[in-house]
C-alpha cells in the first residue's frame, strides 16, 4: 500500500522523484530549499516561504494573478518550475515596498482607488512595475498593454491604468517616506464610534 502523495509534505510516494537542493533569492533574501522538480514557483512561494501575497487563481496561465518578477521579467509563477529559478533574483509583492514605505506604484494604486477586492492587485502591481522598470514614463496605452495579461473581475481597469501612468510623478517627491494609510499613520483607520 502506498500512502497518498502529499505535495511538500512528509509523506512521499515510493516512486517519487528525489528532491533537489535549490538556492532561491526572493526579495533579496537567500533560501536553501529541498524541493521536488515538479513544484511550481507559486507553490514554493506560498507554501514553503509563506509569501502568500502572490495569488493562486487559474493555474493555467490565463489570469495573471500569480505574476512575479524573475530576473526582472514579469512571469507567471504557476507555470514556472521553482528549480528553474536557481540563481535568478525573484521579486514578489512582499518585496516591492521598502519596509513600511510603499513603492510609488503602490501609493498610486491607493491614491487612484485602483484596489477594489484586491485579489488581482499583487499581479497588477508586478506587471506594472515590470513596465515602469523598462519604460519609466509609459502612456496609458502602454500601461493597458502591460496589464493585458491580468484579469480584474471587479473591472477596475481604468483606475489601474491611471495609477501606473501617475506613478512616475509620485516617484519624484520624497521617496522612502511613510505614506498616509500605511500602518505607521492613521488616516485610513476606522474612527472610534461615538455615543
Amino acid at each position, binding site marked *: 500500500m502506498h500512502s497518498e*502523495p502529499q*505535495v511538500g509534505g512528509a509523506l512521499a*510516494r515510493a*516512486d*517519487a*522523484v528525489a528532491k*533537489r537542493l535549490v538556492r532561491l533569492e526572493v526579495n533579496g533574501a537567500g533560501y536553501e530549499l529541498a524541493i*521536488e*522538480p*515538479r*513544484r*511550481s514557483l*507559486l*507553490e514554493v512561494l506560498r507554501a514553503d516561504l509563506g509569501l502568500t501575497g502572490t495569488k*493562486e487563481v487559474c*493555474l*493555467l*496561465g*490565463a489570469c*495573471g494573478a500569480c*505574476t512575479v518578477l524573475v530576473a526582472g*521579467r*514579469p*512571469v*507567471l509563477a*504557476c*507555470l*514556472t*518550475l521553482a*528549480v*528553474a529559478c536557481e540563481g535568478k533574483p525573484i521579486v514578489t509583492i512582499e518585496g516591492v515596498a521598502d519596509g513600511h514605505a510603499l513603492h510609488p506604484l503602490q501609493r498610486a494604486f491607493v491614491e487612484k482607488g485602483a484596489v477594489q477586492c484586491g485579489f488581482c492587485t499583487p499581479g497588477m502591481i508586478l*506587471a506594472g512595475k*515590470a513596465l515602469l522598470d523598462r519604460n519609466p514614463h509609459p502612456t496609458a496605452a502602454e500601461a493597458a*498593454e*502591460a496589464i*493585458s*495579461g*491580468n*484579469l480584474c473581475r471587479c473591472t477596475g481597469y481604468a483606475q489601474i491604468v491611471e495609477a501606473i501612468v501617475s506613478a512616475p510623478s509620485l516617484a519624484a517627491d520624497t521617496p522612502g517616506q511613510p505614506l498616509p494609510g500605511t500602518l505607521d499613520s492613521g488616516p485610513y483607520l476606522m474612527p472610534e464610534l461615538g455615543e
Partner: protein
Amino acid sequence: MQALPAFRYFAPTSVDEALGLLAELGGEAMPAAGGTDLVPSMRQGLFAPKSVISLQAVDALRRIGWDDGAGLEIGALATLREVAADAEVRRRFPFVARAAHAVGSPQLREMGTVGGNLCLDTRCTFYNQSQGWRDTRGACVKTGGEFCKASPNGRARKCFAVFSADLATALVAADARVTLRSARGTRTLALAEFYTGDGAKPNARAPDELVTGVSIPARMQDVFGTYLKYRVRQSIDYPIAGVALTLRADAARRVGDEVRLVVGGVTSRPLVVGAVAELLRGRSLDDALIEQAAALARKAATPLANTAGDRAHRREMVHEMTRRALREALNHAQ
C-alpha cells in the same frame, strides 16, 4: 493546488548535452522551453513525462540575426517578446513581429519561445480539460480512445484538434524553414511540411529531436506580409481564426509568383490555401478578385465544433480576414 505529476528534471547548458539527454531518454522525456504550453497540460494530466529537459539554460539557441545570404535566423529559445521587439524582425518582417505579439499575454510572451510556438500542441474543447472532466466522457482519439468527440456523429477515428499558434502560421506564410537536430544528425525542412495535419500528432518532430531554430529566406524581405487574428478578447486568448498572407504585386497590382495564404486556428495544421495562390497568381488585384479569393479561403477552412466560436462564424471570419488581408496588400501595392 493541483500538483504536477512527478518527473526527473534536467537542465543542460549546451545543445549537444540536450541532444545527448534526448537520445538517452527518448520518448520518456519531453523538452521544455518556456513551459507555457507544457505545464498547463501536465497539470490537466494530458502529459506525464518521466523526465523534463529544461532548455532555458541553452543560451546558444537564443540568437536572432540577419544575414544577407541566409536571411533571418531565429533561435528556438528566443522568446516571443524578443521576436516582437527585435529591430531586424520589425524592419524586414513586420508581420512576423505582429504575429509574435499577438500570442497570449505579456507574461506568456515573456516566457513562451519560438520553438514552443512551432511545437504547440493542438487544442480542442474536448481535450484541454481537467482529468475529472475528461474521465466523465471517456478517452478521445488524442487521449488514446477510438473516436473523436468533436466529430458531428462522434464516430470519426481521426483527431481534429486545432493548431492555434499565431507565429507559426505567419512563419509558414513567410516560407520559413525549420531546423531539427538530434544525436543522429541535422535536418532542415519547409515549416509547412513540419506539420502533419493529424491533430493527435501535429508535427514531425521525432522524440529524440530538438527544434533548434527557424529561418526566413532573404528574398522574402521585400514581399508584403500581414497577419490577422480573431479572438474573444484582445489578449490572452488563442485565435478563433488567424490569417497570414504574403504577396508580391507589381505597380500594376499584378500578383507575382510569391503569394501564400495560410489559415490558423481552424484545422490541425497551419492550412496553406493553395487555391487562393493559384487564383491570384498572374492576375491583377481588384475588389472582385479579392472577393473570389476570400470565398475560396472560406471554402477551404473546415472547422469542427471544437474551439470557441461556432463553425459557421469561424468560416465567416476566415472569409472576412482574408478579404481584409488582401485589401491591405492592394493598398500596399498602390
